[in-house]
């Protein structure tokens, strides 16, 4: 593997593989842990996982690209998930998403800020419909949003 990964992260990955590697149906939990460590799933990491748990890389790639949770590209330090659930939709989620893009300076097709500070994603529903529209930053949920509140929320994480 190249030098772009910290030695301690690779040690952590090997630890995860040693812990979970032999369990049945382990691929998804291993990928979840690996993504926790590296922030995304670089090719080198997938190759290492494939060798250790004896699952073909093609199959791993198939799983990684199937689930919305896995990412093959580097991601921002903070993950902003803008909820697009039905309740949020009818209560103005589009406007919230537009304001998020504006505040983060992201174009329609972009998802991560240049400084890797934020990654903006949409999510189908975070189950907090009573407070629609809502968004999540990392594990924190913010509800009853209006476009004006977005800047203040993002500033807490800058």
């Amino acid at each position: 593997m190249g030098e772009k990964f910290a030695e301690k992260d690779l040690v952590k990955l090997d630890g995860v593989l040693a812990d979970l590697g032999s369990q049945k149906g382990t691929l998804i939990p291993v990928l979840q842990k690996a993504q926790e460590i590296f922030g995304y799933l670089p090719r080198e990491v997938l190759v290492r996982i494939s060798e250790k748990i004896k699952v073909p890389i093609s199959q791993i790639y198939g799983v990684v690209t199937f689930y919305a949770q896995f990412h093959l590209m580097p991601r921002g330090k903070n993950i902003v998930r803008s909820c697009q659930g039905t309740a949020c939709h009818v209560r103005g989620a589009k406007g919230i998403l537009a304001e998020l893009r504006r505040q983060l300076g992201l174009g329609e097709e972009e998802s991560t800020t240049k400084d890797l500070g934020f990654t903006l994603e949409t999510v189908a529903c975070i189950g907090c419909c009573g407070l629609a529209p809502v968004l999540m930053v990392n594990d924190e949920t913010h509800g009853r949003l209006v476009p004006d509140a977005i800047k203040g929320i993002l500033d807490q994480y800058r």
Partner: protein
Amino acid sequence: MAIKSLDDLRKIKESAKQATSARHESGTQVIVGMGTCGIAAGARTIMTAILDEISKRGLQNVSVMQTGCIGMCQKEPLVDIVRPGEPRVTYGNVKPEDVPRIISEHLVNGRILSDLVVAKI
């Protein structure tokens, strides 16, 4: 403790019930709704404000607890106050600046805040 039989389970049930009623008799409780909805509406800030207020006042015998979502998302954050021998009273749409009033007026002095109260159990 390990629960090995129905009798063990009943014992725990009785002691849990006693503990709850003892709390009802002798101490006061503050209960904050800490489901995802509550937290999204600011329940964590409310919880911190309550703990601050209680320690600032040096109140004794007050337990601060959390509970799940009671389903009234519109009124989150929700805070319940239980005073010895009295029903549990729920406040809704609680803001951090309401906390000192809830603690001083209701928890300490038993005067229910008519502007924030939702219901009692």
